[in-house]
């Protein structure tokens, strides 16, 4: 089926925007509900059936609030930061293959694209913290930068491992190579590298750290730094950061699904389709929420130690191991 290019572009734009919006809104609801159930509470129940209209109510509340730009801030950057944080998250979605046919834009170096735009995230958070001119926000911004720099490294190393196994930078092809049963998925591709499950865990941990999620939520750290970089943001300014956090989580979990869990392929090799992709992705998102509501926050230097002393050596080791195995057994 050939759809004329302008319509295709328009529909994929709308679909991506809608997908991000719906996810950001409803993951808030899911998170609140899941948190409540983990804690044996009921969660939102009042607005709509089972609190389903809660995101709408939240949005209305946030939008009706006054947006305060405190005196002394760098006004331009302070207002720019919330805008800037949404862009990279949205750009990542432009190349994510939801299924074989459902790719907004299939480009040859889509893997690189996701990580290139993913690395913009930190600048936005950083600008938010810096321009607030608030001590808590600046401490938090410094933390965020060193955290993101530290976790970018093992993440890219792990991705390079996957890259070497699948020998392409095209996400669609990476998934296509994992067809036919869960034993072909990269996470279980023990022939290429017996440490593949470990690399998946490393990727997942790095993804948590890159999206500033608990137990690595140094950006917010509400019991230490009040609200971290978001301290001075009010109303929808804060709301946008909140949405971007969920957009980033979705992007990260989608990447984990694509790189390790066989994308749209089913575990038994039958009926591939977008639902498998969504199922795996939402399972990972649930795990992210689950982790958040189980663990306390790590120390800041514990977090850096984890990256520099454990994750980077481990991922380097898997990288060397994979290349060695590839060299010996070839393809």
């Amino acid at each position, binding site marked *: 089926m050939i759809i*004329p290019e302008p319509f295709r572009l328009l529909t994929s734009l709308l679909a991506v925007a809608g997908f991000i919006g719906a996810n950001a809104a409803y993951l808030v609801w899911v998170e609140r509900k899941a948190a409540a159930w983990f804690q044996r509470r009921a969660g939102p129940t009042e607005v709509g059936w089972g609190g389903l209209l809660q995101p709408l109510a939240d949005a209305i509340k946030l939008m009706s609030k006054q947006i305060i730009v405190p005196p002394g801030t760098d006004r331009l950057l302070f207002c720019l930061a919330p805008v800037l944080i949404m862009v990279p998250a949205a750009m990542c979605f432009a190349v994510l293959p939801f299924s074989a046919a459902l790719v907004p834009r299939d480009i040859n*170096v889509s893997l*690189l694209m996701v990580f*290139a735009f993913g*690395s*913009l995230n930190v*600048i936005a958070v950083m600008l938010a913290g810096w321009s607030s001119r608030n001590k808590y926000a600046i401490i938090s911004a410094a933390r965020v*930068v060193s955290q993101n*720099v530290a976790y970018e490294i093992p993440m890219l190393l792990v991705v390079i491992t996957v890259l070497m196994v699948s020998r392409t930078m095209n996400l669609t092809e990476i998934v296509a190579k994992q067809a036919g049963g869960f034993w072909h998925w990269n996470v279980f591709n023990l022939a290429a590298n017996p440490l593949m499950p470990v690399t998946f865990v490393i990727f997942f941990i790095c993804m948590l750290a890159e999206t500033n999620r608990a137990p690595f939520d140094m950006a917010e750290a509400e019991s230490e730094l009040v609200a971290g970089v978001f301290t001075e943001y009010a109303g929808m300014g804060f709301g946008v950061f909140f949405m971007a956090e969920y957009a980033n989580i979705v992007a990260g979990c989608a990447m984990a699904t694509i790189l390790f869990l066989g994308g749209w392929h089913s575990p038994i090799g039958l009926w591939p389709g977008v639902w498998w992709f969504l199922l795996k992705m939402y399972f990972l998102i649930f795990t992210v929420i689950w982790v958040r509501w189980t663990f306390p926050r790590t120390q800041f230097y514990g977090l850096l130690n984890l990256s520099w002393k454990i994750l980077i050596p481990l991922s380097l080791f898997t990288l060397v191991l994979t290349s060695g195995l590839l060299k010996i057994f070839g393809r």
Partner: protein
Amino acid sequence: MSAFPAADRLVAGIFLLFVATTVAGSVLAVFTTRIIRSVCGLALASIGLAGLYYFLHSPFLALMEILIYIGAVCVTIIFAVMLAEPDEPRPDKPTGRSILWWLGAIVVSGAIFWSVARLGLMGNWPTPAIDRKDGSVHDIGVALLTTYSLAFEVISLVLMVAILGAVAIARSGRHHE
């Protein structure tokens, strides 16, 4: 692309947008007094540059530009800004000397711009190839590890030395331990 209405106009518009972004970013980076905005200018220029690379048939480099320049260089600079002073000292009253400096800078950069741009516009270039294939990532990889393997090794050595040097210099001033 042919099915797209007014495709070439759209493309030209996007191209001009990228050119404007690049130049505006550079201007911001150079002229603003706040260093943090200056870094933002550099980031902006990098985004524009990435777009220009895309138009120069090299999406790979475009993405690498974003990854390295914004993801690494800008972040590192901002980090250093946080450790050191945030702002430049406000310029004092213009003295004769500073005006002289300013005039000198204007003249030098103006001369450079004029001569290089003139060279670019009037230079005796061969006829440009209009529709050429892009160098694929595969080609780049092969060339890196065959023809340019020495340069590749030297670069990795330079990076290694840079890391070690940076660590050594930065560590020597630490007085907590």
